[in-house]
């Protein structure tokens, strides 16, 4: 039997169901490896003692009909967890302990999973390298001083380093798919409205979506099946018929039409990304798919649109952090002084920058020129996809314009950092599902991912395409456990 932490989710479930290992053994194995991996700084808060207690409880009274029977899982610290500190990577929530549970995490516990701890992330999910976290940088297990991507950086790092069998992240502009791509893992952003936003610390409400991250496509399907649910507590939750994604998973994609958007061939794109994409196209053909050239003419406007819409919503969503009801508070001479000190000491510089951008684009005299304009362009971007989907079933692109970079490399250049999300952002703007699967390495040996974008609510289709291509790609992550002495 493989070392427990190196087992896939499917293997673990099987081994627990067949009583080859107990939940306690599994939990302890992941805790043990997590303890040895403190150097990665993947966790903000661990709940190891509680996890062992829960695992023992599961073993005493096991229910093997559940989808995640006794499986220990660590989650991004953007999900509110009852009685467990939830920080969103921010000083302003440093000591916040929710009295409630997010719907997505509740869905996981309901299927028998056990919380291992809360994983590091960019502050309020604003970042692409996990460098904006108040709780410090996260190391990628791929290489020392390499960023794991962001904002779900702790999730990607913990997953790739086998500190958790699967995990969940959130994706507002690429925060699941980009770190998955950087760490050689699978990450799915479901259709907007698929997973409830209830209890997830909000960044940009019209873009935020929770999703699974995993070692492989099958595990991704299992976890998505658990977390995707209609929720009356979220007015933007959509009541559509959700499939049994893992059961209906199929490698047969014969005749599926896959679009290749010419606009994703951006200036200055590294040759190895270009080559990876071509390799992906060939694999898709090998799997029986039909490749069709398409155009998404407004692609180049997606990033500017995103950097109006997301900060605008964020500037309002983050107004509640004012030092009154919860979290950090600074002393002030009067109410306004208290607000200003609390917020400038409690928020990091990237969050403050985005609040400023958002306030500016909504302010009187600029609303039409920026915010309204962005909403109109967002419509154009969505229309591009609608048009494309008249001809194809899915779209294949690279996940990111480059592989992972070194910690500190882009920290002082916000625009170059933002460009990281160029291929992922349009998918959020259009509310579509997108999955990143590992597809190769660059010359430094760092993973590179391919993104498959689907029609709204067509998660099954992109999972199937990913599943089929995964077999042909046969990716192997090169992780040497460098951080464990």
């Amino acid at each position, binding site marked *: 039997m493989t070392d427990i932490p190196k087992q896939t989710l499917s293997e673990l479930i099987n081994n627990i169901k067949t009583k080859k290992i107990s939940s306690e053994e599994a939990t302890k194995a992941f805790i043990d490896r997590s303890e040895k991996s403190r150097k990665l700084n993947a966790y903000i808060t661990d709940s190891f003692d509680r996890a062992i207690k829960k695992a023992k409880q599961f073993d005493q009274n096991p229910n093997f009909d559940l989808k995640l029977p006794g499986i220990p899982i660590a989650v991004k610290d953007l999900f509110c967890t009852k009685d467990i500190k939830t920080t969103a990577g921010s000083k302003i929530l440093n000591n916040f302990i929710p009295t409630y549970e997010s719907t997505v995490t509740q869905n996981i516990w309901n299927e028998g999973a056990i919380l291992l701890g809360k994983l590091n992330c960019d502050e309020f999910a604003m970042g692409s390298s996990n460098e904006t976290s108040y709780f410090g940088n996260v190391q990628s297990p791929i290489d020392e001083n390499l960023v794991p991507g962001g904002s779900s950086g702790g999730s990607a790092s913990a997953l790739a380093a086998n500190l958790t069998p699967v995990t969940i992240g959130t994706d507002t502009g690429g925060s699941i798919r980009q770190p998955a791509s950087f760490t050689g893992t699978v990450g799915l952003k479901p259709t907007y409205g698929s997973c409830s936003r209830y209890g997830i610390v909000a960044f940009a409400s019209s873009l935020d979506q929770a999703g699974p991250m995993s070692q492989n496509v099958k595990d991704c399907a299992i976890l998505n099946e658990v977390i995707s649910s209609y929720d009356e507590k979220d*007015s933007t939750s959509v009541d559509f018929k959700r499939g049994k994604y893992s059961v209906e998973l199929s490698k047969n994609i014969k005749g599926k039409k896959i679009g290749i958007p010419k606009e994703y061939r951006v200036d200055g794109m590294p040759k190895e990304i270009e080559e990876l994409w071509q390799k992906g196209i060939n694999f898709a053909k090998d799997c029986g798919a039909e490749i069709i050239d398409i155009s998404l003419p407004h692609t180049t406007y997606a990033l500017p649109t995103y*950097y109006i819409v997301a900060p605008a919503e964020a500037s309002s969503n983050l107004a509640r952090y004012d030092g009154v009801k919860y979290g950090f508070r600074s002393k002030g001479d*009067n109410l306004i002084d208290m607000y200003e000190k609390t917020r400038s000491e409690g928020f990091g510089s990237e969050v*403050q920058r985005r609040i400023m951008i958002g306030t500016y684009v909504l302010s009187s005299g600029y609303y039409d020129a920026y915010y309204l304009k962005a909403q*109109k362009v967002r*419509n*154009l971007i969505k229309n591009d996809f609608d048009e494309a989907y008249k001809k194809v079933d899915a779209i294949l692109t690279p996940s990111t314009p480059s592989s992972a970079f070194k910690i500190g490399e882009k920290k002082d250049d916000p625009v170059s950092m933002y460009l990281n999300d160029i291929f992922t952002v349009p998918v959020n*703007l259009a509310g579509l599902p997108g999955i990143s699967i590992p597809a190769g390495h660059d010359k430094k040996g760092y993973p590179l991912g391919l993104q498959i974008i689907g029609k709204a609510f067509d998660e099954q289709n992109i999972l199937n395409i990913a599943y089929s291509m995964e077999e042909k790609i046969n990716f192997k992550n090169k992780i040497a456990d460098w951080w464990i002495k």
Partner: protein
Amino acid sequence: MTIDLKTIKHIAKLSRISVDDEKAKKLAGDLNSIFDFIEKLNELKTDQIKPLTSIAETSLKLRNDEIKSQNMREEIIKNSPEKNEDYFVVPKVIE
């Protein structure tokens, strides 16, 4: 377009974030480079385009008029930084 320091300070005030001159200068630099990049949208004519306000493909669901949450004062106040059992506390406001 350039965002000047006065505008930065005004926006900071609206955002309830304190900025001194040094921070304002840094923010002005950052915001100007970001807006240079955002200005690309001006290439597009959008007069006839409708804004997209919500991406969720559903209609607004209405809930019944039922009281479900009972008194949860303790739970609500527990996390507040200033200790008072009944109220949230802020510095004295003079109207």
